[in-house]
């Protein structure tokens, strides 16, 4: 019987490949092939209007230009600052939220749901909400800070470099912390209760139990969450672009926004491809580093 033969071990390998085939081909067309094209573009001094004509001579110009360029390093610095601040913020709020809703209290299920809710708000929408809350004239944040006497007059958040950067950071944290909270909560629930009991028997205080039982057990989950949060921040375009467009005077122009601007505002598509590929290399290096360390443990 043909049907029975298909289930045999010899046929199974081929079946898997056959089933995976359509995805593999699609991904090749939509990701691998385009990436190769981007690589090719990055080695040409080419503008968007020339693309499709004869191939221009090979050059490393785009890469040398990027690495010797203040704008590029400025963008790299801003991306790094976003990554550091947003990751710290996401983990502080995310872990605190997870610990909070891991306790036993009435309405805990609803609290778990609500804590994760910003996740469901589309990035573009989240960005516009924060832009409105930080509005210089009628924004609710200015009102709050004035009320608390923390500032003496309204701040024009989005037209000043540091302030605009802070607004983007807040928005990115708000969209990013729920993922950490959900992951950490799943990790907390996987810790066996016996570990805590054993620690209690040894006379460990709440803080010691947290430090010696909870934190080590959460390490693998946190490592994964960290990789994904960092990648998300480096790759973010929507949040920053909608809030500030990369301004004022480049104060929020991250690598992603810089890549986009070079490609589609200034049409330096070869240069933009080079900047984008450098960003990809940074992402890949960072992810492998964390995953390696995690595996080595």
């Amino acid at each position: 019987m043909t049907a029975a033969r298909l289930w045999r071990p010899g046929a199974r390998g081929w079946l898997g490949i056959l089933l995976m085939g359509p995805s593999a081909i699609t991904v090749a067309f939509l990701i691998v092939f385009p990436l190769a094209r981007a690589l090719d573009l990055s080695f040409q001094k080419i503008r968007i209007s020339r693309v499709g004509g004869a191939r221009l001579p090979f050059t490393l110009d785009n890469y040398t230009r990027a690495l010797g360029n203040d704008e590029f390093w400025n963008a790299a610095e801003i991306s790094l600052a976003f990554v550091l601040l947003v990751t710290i913020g996401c983990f502080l709020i995310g872990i605190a939220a997870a610990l909070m809703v891991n306790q036993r209290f009435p309405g805990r299920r609803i609290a778990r749901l609500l804590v994760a809710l910003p996740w469901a708000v589309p990035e573009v929408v989240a960005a516009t909400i924060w832009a409105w809350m930080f509005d210089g004239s009628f924004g609710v944040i200015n009102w709050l800070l004035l009320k608390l006497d923390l500032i003496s007059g309204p701040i024009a958040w989005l037209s000043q470099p540091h302030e605009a950067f802070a607004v983007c950071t807040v928005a990115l944290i708000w969209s990013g912390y729920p993922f950490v909270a959900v992951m950490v909560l799943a990790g907390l629930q996987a810790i066996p209760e016996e570990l805590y009991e054993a620690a209690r028997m040894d006379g460990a205080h709440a803080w010691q139990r947290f430090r010696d039982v909870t934190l080590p057990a959460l390490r693998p989950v946190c490592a994964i969450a960290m990789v994904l949060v960092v990648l998300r921040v480096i790759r973010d375009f929507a949040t920053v672009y909608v809030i500030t467009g990369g301004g004022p005077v480049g104060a929020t122009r991250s690598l992603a926004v810089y890549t986009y601007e070079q490609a589609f505002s200034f049409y330096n598509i070869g240069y933009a491809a080079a900047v984008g590929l450098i960003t990809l290399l940074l992402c890949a290096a960072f992810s492998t580093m964390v995953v390696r360390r995690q595996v080595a443990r």
Partner: protein
Amino acid sequence: MRKQTLPALAAFIACAVLLFPVWWMLVTAVAPPDDIRAYPPVFFPTHPSFAAFHSILYDRPMLRWIANSLIVAAMSTALTMVLGVLGGYALSRFPSRTTRAVGMSVLLAKMIPTTLLVIPLYVLFREAGLLSTLASAALAHCTVTIPFAIWMLKAYFDSIPFELEEAAAIDGNTPLGALWHIILPVSLPGLGATALYAFILSWNEFAFSRTLLFSAPDNWTVTIGIASIRGEYIISWNEIMAASAIVAVPIILVFVWLERYLVVGLTAGAQK
């Protein structure tokens, strides 16, 4: 009971603070225009007005943006589900070095900056005459949705006992027949959650859509539309928050409804 009041209270306050932006979106969307400039701000609208919804829906092409977003999301979800089911089934039931290699490399797509990938996609779609069409955005969204769907469905198929297929094999089914007749019917919750999540990813997407569709305003999606209102010289915060509410509230409701499935699927996918 006493011991539980404090955590409950803390959780309530924390949720109120963390979710204030969502509340503020809704309040602004229904605020009469005077309330927007009110000092102190009006936190609980006493005279809700739906003027902003009216003007966003009838004076601006919001309905067209919504229709475009729905079409793009439907197209990318359909393609994603076909490929995701086959790929996820392969990874779950017929793992080999090759399938795993494809599965892993698909995950690496998570590292590629959208702003990088969109450059060659823009060029390729332009050469293929697809630029500014809804199909171009749908295909671009698939670069995000396919990898995640394959792994989310693999995790779901893993939870289905293999005996089901053994029985199907004895009954004379081919593997594809078993997938179609036996596995898919019992996987409907997983399929639904995956499809919905793919749909949401596409509905929310901005960078690809904005680049590929920007030159054709008739084909703008909701996210491009909202960003364009945000970019206007005098921003009508009522209208933009009304538009935001229209875009976000359905997603929030789906999330509330399906939270358990979505969270399980996502954390499973994230651990790979």
